[in-house]
């Protein structure tokens, strides 16, 4: 077969790169990020156990990213450590507790966001909950049990505010429709659950509002400088591999360079994913 003309070569290379980026994105979002999330959950669970045992677990406002509660929904087989904060980066390690609401188990409305497709999709099955299902949340103040009231979608009536001294937990995620529903979560869905038993008193000191990045389907443009650095690293890595390929045996180069490139690509994808809606 004759060598391709230069234009076609460039075109096909470009197409190959596009295909690689698309494949990598899908692979990262649906598969690799899930592995990272499982690993993060493992660490967070240990951290939370230690904090609860040592009575250092937060009762009120905490640094974003700190584990605050263990959420389990037996009917879904779901067991996740909830972290403080609902920015896209917080939700990469597990469901996130919205910082301007009370913690689960406390009097008032507690809101927990969870991803529906990427990073392990912890809340993918949450919209299938039915009224009466149980939700257990363990925090530093003990275990609280909630009963699901129902699933709320666009146009459904809002529930009444909880009476003083009672608590409600609202799980928020997104869902899609059509044949690709599982990977196209484009609108928010809410699941309300009422606290069974006595509510703890919230300590106060919560922020009055959260930035847009921490609202439902919020994106965090603050990651852009980090992303730029990651992309620079990726470019540098690729250049180093290209140069090394000319001087060293290719097998050595790939053995050395592939892990580095994969790690850089992973880092870049994690940063880029913060530009995507936090419930994805």
């Amino acid at each position, binding site marked *: 077969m004759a060598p391709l003309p230069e234009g076609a070569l460039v075109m096909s290379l470009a197409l190959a790169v596009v*295909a690689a980026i698309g494949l990598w994105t899908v692979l990262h979002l649906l598969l690799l990020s899930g592995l990272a999330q499982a690993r993060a959950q493992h660490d967070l669970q240990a951290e939370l156990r230690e904090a609860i045992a040592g009575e250092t677990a937060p009762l009120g406002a905490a640094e974003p990213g700190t584990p605050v509660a263990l959420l389990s929904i037996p009917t879904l087989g779901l067991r996740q450590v909830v972290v403080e904060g609902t920015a896209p980066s917080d939700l990469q390690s597990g469901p996130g507790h919205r910082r301007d609401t009370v913690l689960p188990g406390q009097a008032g409305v507690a809101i927990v966001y969870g991803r529906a497709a990427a990073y392990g999709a912890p809340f993918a099955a949450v919209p299938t909950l039915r009224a009466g299902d149980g939700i257990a949340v363990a925090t530093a103040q003990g275990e609280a049990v909630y009963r699901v009231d129902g699933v709320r979608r666009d146009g459904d009536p809002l529930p009444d505010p909880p009476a003083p001294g009672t608590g409600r937990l609202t799980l928020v995620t997104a869902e899609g429709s059509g044949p690709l529903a599982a990977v196209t979560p484009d609108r928010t869905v809410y699941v309300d659950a009422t606290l069974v038993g006595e509510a703890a008193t919230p300590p106060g000191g919560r922020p009055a509002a959260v930035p847009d990045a921490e609202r439902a*389907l919020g994106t965090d443009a603050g990651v852009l400088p980090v992303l730029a650095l990651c992309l620079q690293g990726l470019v540098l890595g690729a250049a180093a591999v290209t140069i090394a390929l000319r001087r060293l045996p290719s097998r050595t180069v790939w053995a050395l360079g592939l892990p580095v490139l994969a790690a850089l690509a992973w880092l870049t994808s994690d940063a880029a994913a913060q530009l995507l809606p936090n419930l994805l």
Partner: protein
Amino acid sequence: MNQEYPVVVLQCRGVDDPAAPADRRLSPETCWTTTYLERYAAVSPALAVWRHDRAATDADRADQDAVADWPQECLRFPADLFSQRLLPFRSAKGQVYASCNDATVPPESAVDAALPASELAGFTGLDGTGDVRFEVRSSTENESLGCSSEVACSLVVIPIMGISCADADAACRGTGSFPPGSSNFGNVGVDPAVSPLYWWSASNWQHRFTVPLTFALPPDACDVLDPRAPVDMYGSELLSQATLQWAPAYCLRQDRFKMRHNRQTEEASLRLVARGEAAAAFVSDPAHDPPVPLGYAPVAVTGFAVAYVADLPDNAGEADRMRLTPRLLAKLLTQSYPASISGRAHPGLERNPVSLNADPEFVELNPGMSLTTEEARATVLSLSEQADTIHALTAYLAADPEAAAFVAGTPDPWGMVVNPSYRGVTLPVAEWPMLDTFVRDINRECESLNKVPYLGQVAAPVTTMRAIAEAVLDAWPNVQTQCTRATPTDPWKFGRIPRQGYGARFMLGLVTLGDAERYGLRTAELRTAGTGASATFVAAAPGSMAAALAAARQAGPGEPFLLDRSALSPDAYPGTMVVHTAARLSGMPPADARHVSQFVRVALEEGQVPGPGNGQLPAGYVPLVASGPTAPLHAAALAVADAVEAQRGAPAPQVPAPGGLVPPSGPGLPGESSAVLTSAPLGVGGLPPEAAVPATEQGLPADTAPAAAAPDADGTTVAGRSTTAGRLVPAMLGLSIAGMLGVPALRSFAGRRSTP
């Protein structure tokens, strides 16, 4: 205060009636002065003019410090060296302050007290007239003076005509050294016989005119008279003067409630309302992204104004007219005047006029003003916080092509350019940013210790519009460039510059129309159309504000009325703003819902009757009535009041049929009001009008019926949507499949083309 032959104006406790009991009678001892120097004299015997006063008693003419009851703490000078005279101050509580030094004065006149002096000595022009503005203070501001609704007070005006001399003493017979009609700017020494310092001397005091003053209920009347827990409403300062008068009409009636208006930024107020932590918010602009549906009931038509105080040169009195264009306001807000010669070192401002009054554009519109430049003349005192007022002001600038072009970087016809820090700043904004970072390079210890942006110190915006109104009233600019230190060993810091002297005042401030009327501030006319000499300038007046309402649009039932400032007619006042009561339409506790709807209904009825009484509408507000240009607002407000009380989501679109929600009373035109209301039906959870009116005549709720009719008396869930989240994965999948299919296809296609 140091003038010759001035007219002294004082506020004194008591009435000027010889028949009144002694403790309610006016005397020099109950007259307020801010410094002890106006009550205590210690001069050499040759200058002690009061000792030669023919009208005084022998005791007054005697050497006072020799008498037995001379206060111990006032023994400052040996009695034989000076002639001394003391006029103690008697406070409302009966306490006597000797007032001979800073330690023996009432707390309100201590050094660095909160309020500047209110007493003044005005000078008389060559035509024999004079004009001053006097601030009357109640017991809220000045407890020692203690004027209130129960304690009568008087305004005392004393023309100083010289002390009538009992003998041929030279000092007493002095006739002054300043030419008639002039003002003592330099504060140099004056002839004591004709100075205001001895206003208390018998021959001056006997010439007084007194004007009895009566006071309204104090602002804390509700707290004193009504033990109930207050219903908190937050929001716009535009409504402060109205709610001040309205509050007693609510709290003093058992069938109403105790309302409290807490001034707060509109954004924060709406957030409190949305979260259920406040009953209602007073706002002009809608909430950005409310989690629950809110209803907006118009309750007041008022607005902002640019208040000014400007003395004409050569003691010609005060300017009573000032005309401003949007571009002049833009120049002031963007800190484009360098404020002083040293400010001209600011890059980009080298060729700009130093201050507003030196700007040819201003001079052309306002001839005859003083041309002296001064830092305070380069700025307009404005708000540092988020405010719908700032949004309205900047929208007015953005709607003007000249102002917008100036901000974008086009020089004005005289070559003045915008401050580069503000070039291209986004308009309109709800919070004016402080962008300038220029620090003056001056070899002064205090400047080198405090590296702060110079023009920011000149602008020095404050947090409340009331503070601005008081600054303009006192002609005390908030320019923070005065080097001060508490003691000679403390480090220097920047503080507020001193008050401007009478005759040399010039400052501008952004105030509410309510405050401008309350404090009697002069407000500038704003340009609405045309340029140059043919331009139209409009002052704030009920007619021009009503004309602005023609540009008010409502997006749907329950939504606020927004003024499109680019569509204002030339006779409309551009500072007009509509203030709404915003409240949740679902999920509110029934008691709060009842109170808010009652508030709106009462505010729309007795609250729109102009007058100074409890519950009436103060000046600065256009009565919002059911007929005329305010008819759509009135009808919409009543509809929202019903919707708030029903707590079942947004109000239904209005039906112009007779059975509609709000039959307009009086000569209102039903067609006119509904034309606006039906423009865009919202209809989320809207109920038929008949079902939405369970209210009775008393404004009391039909407590159980609506709850039974609608199982969940609440708003509706609004789902967030994101196309990114929905399309990302399929798009990426599509891309990769296209790429994977494309590469072999391209190769085979190109290979076939290149083989033959």
